[in-house]
């Protein structure tokens, strides 16, 4: 898939700044995707998390992984997306954070679809900085929900 097509899939997600945590999608397949979140260091949430020692909140890394997983769902349902865009809602997160991420950082994101049944999608996810794993686990998305109903 071309980078332009990957970008289009990313744009099909309902998330927008300041709650978009995937800056670029490197690859998207029916079963997996990779991407990156560039944390600059001047994001407002870092002022409070924590004063004097900014650390990227783990829940936002999990959110970034969920957003990238949503891109995989979009890839699998491309035809349906064209007819009527559908967006997944987070149904479950089970992610461990092994190393605190201090800005600035390029957080590499990886997601792999383990299984889907009906509208539920279970992903294995991983985030890394400079090649070192900072978060790993699983999350589930329930597709078909609009932002209004999620």
């Amino acid at each position, binding site marked *: 898939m071309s980078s332009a097509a990957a970008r289009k899939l990313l744009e099909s997600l309902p998330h927008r700044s300041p709650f978009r945590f995937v800056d670029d999608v490197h690859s998207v397949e029916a079963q997996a995707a990779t991407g990156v979140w560039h944390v600059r260091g001047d994001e407002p949430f870092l002022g409070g998390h924590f004063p004097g020692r900014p650390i990227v909140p783990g829940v936002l890394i999990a959110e970034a992984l969920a957003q990238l997983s949503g891109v995989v769902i979009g890839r699998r349902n491309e035809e349906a997306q064209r007819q009527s865009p559908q967006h997944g809602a987070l*149904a*479950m997160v089970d992610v461990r954070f092994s190393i605190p991420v201090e800005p600035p950082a390029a957080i590499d994101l*990886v997601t*792999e679809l*383990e*299984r*889907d*049944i*009906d509208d*539920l999608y*279970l992903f*294995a*996810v*991983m985030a890394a900085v400079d090649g070192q794993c900072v978060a*790993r686990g699983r999350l*589930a998305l*329930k597709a078909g929900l609009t932002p209004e109903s999620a």
Partner: protein
Amino acid sequence: MIEGSARYHAAMVERAAVFDVVERTIHKDLKLAGARVDDSTRMVGGDLELDSLDLLMLVTGIEKAFGVKLPANQLGPQTMATVGAFVDFAHGRIASNGQAEGRS
């Protein structure tokens, strides 16, 4: 692959091994530690009251452990009503998968 999967030789899998994976998944992955799990335990609509996500994780647990695919169109009230029904179904799929491997 992000996570590796422990695979058994399908033809040698005993029903008890399948039950163990189901029980472990319920206690650990579904975070129902301490829940009574036996063949008569109802998974849906009583006892465990599992939802669709729980059932998806159960299916994934079996598939990863034994390297078998459980067809989505065969997952339903008959195969997932009780722990025993699900273990029987999964064990049957694993066994038939092993026979297919043996023939190939």
